[in-house]
């Protein structure tokens, strides 16, 4: 094992998040989620695993749903990112409201990532079936709800009928 290590290399990046421009000096190895949470204090996006499985850190990156723990902060240079903090515009978005109405969250830890996945889904497919919804949130782990109410809430938010 080496006795000491050189100071890590850094780069200056510019990133737009929820319409606000940020400029920061970041280490090359800094994960995007840590830039978002630790450096920019946007703590709505969460970390639930080390391996890209849980989806709690999901954000929309230049229009594409990504797990922000699977990207380096330097890769976000010049990007436009949407996080959970940008969903409500004065009042809750229909998705956020449906999550509350249908008890689609308990502890709320997975919820920001789940909402971003659902937001990306509904932009792509405004009237998804239950199966399509389940597929779209397959990358998001929830340990509290069993997903039934999440699927229901997304369906309601899409304006479709659901069973009682």
């Amino acid at each position: 094992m080496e006795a000491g290590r050189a100071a890590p290399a850094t780069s200056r990046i510019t990133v737009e998040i929820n319409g606000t421009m940020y400029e920061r000096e970041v280490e090359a190895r800094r994960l995007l989620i840590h830039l978002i949470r630790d450096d920019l204090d946007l703590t709505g996006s969460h970390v639930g695993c080390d391996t890209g499985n849980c989806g709690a850190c999901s954000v929309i990156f230049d229009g594409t749903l990504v797990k922000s723990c699977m990207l380096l902060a330097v890769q976000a240079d010049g990007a436009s990112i949407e996080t959970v903090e940008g969903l409500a515009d004065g009042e809750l978005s229909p998705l956020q409201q449906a999550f509350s109405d249908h008890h689609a969250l308990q502890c709320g830890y997975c919820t920001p990532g789940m909402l971003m996945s659902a937001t990306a889904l509904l932009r792509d497919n405004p009237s998804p079936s239950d199966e399509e919804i389940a597929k779209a949130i397959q990358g998001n782990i929830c340990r509290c709800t069993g997903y039934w109410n999440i699927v229901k809430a997304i369906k309601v938010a899409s304006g479709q009928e659901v069973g009682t």
Partner: protein
Amino acid sequence: MSETTVAPEQTEVEEATRETWSGQNVPRKEDKRLVQGEGVFFDDVKRHNMGYVHFVRSPYAHAKIRSVDVSAALDQPGVYGTLTGDEVATLTDPFFQISSPPGAHLKDYCLAVGKVRFVGEPVAAVVAETREGARDASELIEVDYEPLPAINDARLALDDEAPVLHDEAGTNLTWEGVFEWGDLDAAFAGADRVVKISELHFDRFNSTPLECNGSLVEYNRGTGQWTIITNNQFPGFAAIMMGPAMRVGLDKLRFVTQDIGGGFGNKITTHPQLVACCLLARKLNRAVQWTEWRTDFHLSMSHGNERWFLDTEVAVKSDGTLLGFRTTALDDAGAWLRYEPLGGVIWAQVTPGMYRWRNIRLDFRQVVTNKAPVSPNRGYSRMQHLWFTERVIDIVASELELDPVEVRKRNYIKADEMPYETPNGCIYDSGDYAKMLDVALDLIGYDGLESRRAGAEQRGKLLGLGIGSTLDSGTNNFGQSRLINPDLQFSGNNEVATVKLDLFGEIVVTLGTTPQGQSHETTAAQVVADILGCSVDDVNVRAGHDSYWNSHAGFSGTYASQFAVTGLGAVKGATEMLAGQMRKLASVVLACSPEDIELAEGQARIKGNPEAALPFMALGAIINANNAGLPEDLDVTLNCRYVYRPPFEVPDIERKYGNLTLTYAAQVHAALVEIDPETGVYEVVDYAAVDDCGKRINPQVVEGQVMGATAQALGAATHETFPYDEDGNLLTPNFYDYHVPHALDMPPLKTGYIESASPFTSLGTKGMGEGGGAGIHAVCAALQDALRPRGRPIVHDSFNPYERVWEMLREPDASRARVSVESR
């Protein structure tokens, strides 16, 4: 994907009227912040110049620590400091042990001292300017180990050649207790058949809350107090463990929580890491932040109790009437007793399950092994035992060629026997188990079962039905700890709430609990609004727990299915005190008797004379800011604290007898599985969950708990496991290898309920939320039913991945060798 069905008729409790907030699906107060990413979880909190903690962990399952060298790490730029086992052994005392000897002799510190006993055990800690820097530095800490042989199978832990983990204990058998009630000899003498089952195994897994453990710890040098912003779900227990170990009074430990990302019992035993953080914060004079990595959580935290049931014998009549059983429960605690051996008595809350067994003997033996320490996990210890009783029912039914539905109905405790005293003195408060089973069978389409079975067969599939009937015993009598260790001085239970009317008429509620998604802010507001005659929107329930608020007691926290009884009991008590004071104050102002005052529509007013009314704001203002001239003896503060204390006696230690919990919520689940006999792959194709938790304050919240417990049980039944290799390495240390259910894994779900009000609680409620693992039991039973035409294999493990089903298909006799029936 899911639908709710209300039971056709309800028992005992009348339908909640629209005039009360209780009983309605009031929208959750917590949601507005959580759906906007505005919750505050511990890792969201920052302090100026805080350092990040990373633990150096053992790569060995069992080894002596020859030396720990932190010098290279300390030379690293950005490293603030380190902590080692040698320092810990000087600065702290070992944690208090719950166990009687020999478990009592364990010397457990916050970092390994002298020896490591499982892969992932913290050996040293390092603090640095960044998360990445701390992790880098941890790799520069040189630990010299001398590996020792390890043990990873509880059944081998007592062999002569087995390595002993704790020299101080001198044995791996750290706790043993024999529980016997009734007359076993008479039961077996009177039996027509004795069913013998050589070995059953309840597997190791846990609920893996999505947020891992952690804390932000600050030390105030001036007052000597630590502020611990954390997600520990039982701060009262953490304080009892930490204070004596750190040689400080409990007032020096301030616990703060707000939002917690799931707990499920797994966040009770973080006291070792919290002590390490406290020592580092003091040593470095700096706030320190520890966020556990997912891999670290899997390696080292709160595995559920793995349990073997050995040499079981069941006395039964030919008609399926159950007379009694005897068994040995061999429990694998892992390397340390962090909450254990409480699991050695917690199971006894539900000794006979839902059945009228009167003669029971269970020899509980707990051993330590070179695996992660176990801690409470949703359904803690009762789940293991209920899985056992449910397995026994289905094995007996199968061997006697009886219908499992009929065997259950024949042996269930009956509604007219409630309250029912179990052989060990627990008082099941209320319930109608047979009716719940009927509702579940109706939901799953039991009448059409045989045609569905035939239909599946035509498609080359095997279809089976399984039932899981369980109890979610709630509100612990901590006196049961004395059955583990007679020297302990714990008994009863408590929880605290304060309710006040503030200057501008704000109603402010403070709870002692630490919710992790259980909606306490909402349900507490419902109870308060009903008593004060106001809207839930007018009730402000503070988020989270802070021991500075003086709104907690020794057992405060959120664990063990109790909020609806203890927490809401405290809320009700405090609100009734406040209501009484408001009426008294209004009566002074309006010159009438307090009995003439009613609280309604946000006012205190004279009954029958709504003109004579004081808005809450006026009452708040008078007491808080305009109180000159009030009578001297007016005992009104409008700030009321109430400690709810359930009615318990200390159990009889000799007979191991007494009521161990106050309420016994019930679940009956039914599962239909379809197996592909070519591969062993199976699918849950239909599922029904029926719950009875007495009066439901918020039905949607209750149903959410039922759904969550069901999903966790289904995960544990098929996918979730913590297996170890022979060197003691955990094979599922992250979410790649440890597969939790995803959205596509969920079967269609139907939920139903009945309401049997508890006669023992102030609101008729029962604690609920753990669910007793009913889904595990139901899937096991359904697999056994489906496999029956293929040589009648016996499902003998709680965990049944596809390969195990494949094994049972290929070699049914291998599992059948575990069972024999003796006719008398």
